[in-house]
């Protein structure tokens, strides 16, 4: 029996839905905010660092990452390396301690304390760190904006950010934008660390992430298991790659209201079935879809669980999704039964599962790319490609393994490797050829 690959000749190929139209939506949905974050960080760093900071060798900010050793240009490479390793060890120890404190607090149900601490830290980041970046940008580009106006604008920006990070009623696009802005601000701040310290710190954090998520007593793994056993949202700042609206051109218009409900629908039910198999899902979904075995296959292919990752020590906190959000999907789901278009339901379940990526990953990817931007644009592109491919590999592994995976190690390793390969090998080759106008 030949497979049904010949559509009726009356319809053109453009109106037929093909398999590649909707494949890979979730992956692109995670990659685009990562790319936007990296782009913004590179733009801010290159525009802020051009004339002034090259002349001023001001000491780098005293941070948790420069507690032990502050790099200066006059030291020998081995001294710098040793100092960087010590700095990185101290920083990782600090983050590990903070994560353990977080796990303890979550274990003893201090969730409201964690929630308020998170609100405070988001406000702090947006207002003061974002404010200093805004001040340098205003100064650099000589934008005529007076102090009271900018204070009011900044204050509004920060308050709206605080509100949007925790409330489930805020539109998802706003929440995603604020997540990206927090990540951009923290990454710009981190990229001011000295060079050797940055690289060693990135590698150390990738190793820590690997240990914290995969080892049986790692803090992040304990956190994930606690959260799933209580059927709650993970207490952290995460970016959720939910589709904001159904913008596929192929989905019929009747599915649009259904799809917008779906953006709320996918959320906590997936957590409930986190550690269990998908048997719960299948029962709930089978009356809605015409062919259960097909949907099961589809879900097993696209059933991306959350990716819970390491967080910045400033930002390891609670996201408040209480029980009331769990009733919403049950209410909305009544609307699905009336829609009998199995095509739209296929599109629906294709895009229901949102992947979640921790904000710490955004920050450290952008720090790597920002540090590459301080050398040359070629390394920026190479590191960008390396990070995106590492992220893609991690997402594929996620669909294979079905539990929380660390997102930092593969990307950071590839990024560091590609940075040094590009800087040492590729640059003389390509620049030598192209400045002589010999290209291939």
């Amino acid at each position, binding site marked *: 029996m030949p497979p049904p690959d010949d559509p009726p*000749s009356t319809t053109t190929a453009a109106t037929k839905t093909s*398999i590649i139209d909707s494949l*890979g939506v979730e992956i692109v949905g995670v990659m685009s905010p990562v790319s936007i974050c990296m782009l913004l960080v590179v733009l801010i760093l290159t525009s802020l660092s051009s004339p002034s900071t090259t002349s001023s060798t001001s000491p780098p900010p005293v941070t948790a990452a420069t507690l032990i050793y502050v790099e200066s240009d006059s030291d020998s490479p081995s001294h710098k390396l040793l100092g960087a390793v010590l700095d990185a060890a101290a920083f990782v120890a600090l983050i590990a301690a903070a994560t353990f404190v977080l796990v303890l607090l979550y274990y003893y149900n201090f969730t409201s304390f964690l929630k308020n601490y998170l609100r405070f830290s988001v406000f702090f980041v947006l207002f003061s760190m974002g404010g200093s970046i805004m001040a340098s940008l205003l100064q650099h580009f000589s934008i005529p904006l007076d102090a009271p106006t900018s204070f009011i604008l900044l204050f509004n920006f920060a308050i709206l950010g605080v509100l949007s990070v925790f409330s489930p009623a805020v539109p998802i696009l706003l929440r995603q934008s604020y997540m990206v802005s927090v990540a951009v601000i923290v990454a710009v701040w981190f990229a001011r660390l000295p060079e050797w310290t940055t690289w060693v710190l990135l590698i150390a954090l990738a190793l820590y992430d690997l240990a914290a998520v995969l080892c049986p007593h790692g803090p992040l793994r304990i956190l994930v298991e606690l959260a799933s056993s209580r059927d709650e949202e993970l207490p952290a700042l995460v970016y959720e790659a939910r589709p904001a609206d159904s913008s596929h051109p192929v989905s019929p218009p009747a599915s649009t209201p259904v799809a917008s409900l779906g953006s709320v629908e996918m959320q906590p039910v997936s957590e409930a079935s986190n550690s269990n198999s998908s048997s719960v899902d299948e029962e709930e979904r089978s009356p809605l879809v015409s062919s259960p075995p*097909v949907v099961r296959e589809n879900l097993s292919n696209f059933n991306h669980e959350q990716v819970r990752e390491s967080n910045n020590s400033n930002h390891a906190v609670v996201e408040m999704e209480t029980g009331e959000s769990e009733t919403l999907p049950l209410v909305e789901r009544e609307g699905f039964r009336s829609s009998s278009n199995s095509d739209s339901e296929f599109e629906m379940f294709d895009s229901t599962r949102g992947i979640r990526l921790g904000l710490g990953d955004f920050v450290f990817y952008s720090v790597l790319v920002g540090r590459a931007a301080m050398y040359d*644009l070629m390394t920026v592109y*190479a590191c960008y490609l390396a990070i995106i491919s590492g992220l893609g590999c991690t997402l594929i592994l996620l669909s294979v393994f079905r539990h929380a995976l660390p997102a930092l190690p593969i990307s950071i390793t590839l990024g560091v490797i590609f940075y040094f390969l590009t800087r040492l*090998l590729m640059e003389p080759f390509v620049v030598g*050829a*192209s400045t002589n106008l010999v*290209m291939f």
Partner: protein
Amino acid sequence: MTVAAGVGYVLIALGPALSLLASVIAKKPFLILTLLSSTLFWLISLIILAGAWRAFLPVKSTELWPYSILILTSVGFQEGIRIGFWRLFKKMEDMLNAFADRVSKPRLFLTDKMLLALAGGLGHGLAHAVFFCLSLLTPAFGPATFYVDKCPSIPFFLISAIIALGFVIIHTFSMVIAFNGYTEGKRKDQIFVPFAHLIAALITLINLVPGGCNIGLPLLCIMAGTTLYYSWQLVWRRLTEHQTTRSSD
């Protein structure tokens, strides 16, 4: 020269690529993923080439022969990689068709396969434009411009932007031609692609001669136009054949 000039050079090099991206590729997320992976592929091949040539760099003289060996080896390597890319593409096609059967959706159409080839080629072209042209364009956003000794009549940034434009077109459409040629088994198409790439790369050698860029640039554009025309004819032929076979069922 200024930000406007810098942006202008970027658009010269990447204009057609950006419009292809916006109109065709951005609509289907899978094509975006294909583009990113083919860009990565090209980058890795470039790193391997650079690693192999590292010991001989920098080429001190501006004689023709070291650069011609460089080009011959590079183009040969990249064309070899293209065959490997095609094998990967076949595997992916099989996987996609198996998946389509499982969820009872139609299998890959001919247009889908061509779109995938286009995305792959565009990935290669974008990688070329980024690494050979865009990364050197940073000074163009500043207050001055730069001329190479061999070519005192055209600013360096403009030459590299036009060369990048030519190569974007060549890479993009030769991938379409190559995939069709390997699928159908037609010798003519299979030979055309490495040939076109090699001739285009050898044309850039003319730029080493003083004043050569005045000849090299138009020749390169002619080469790009030839590739475009050839691929247009090929795609037209295949689509009409496919249409007639379908409607005759």
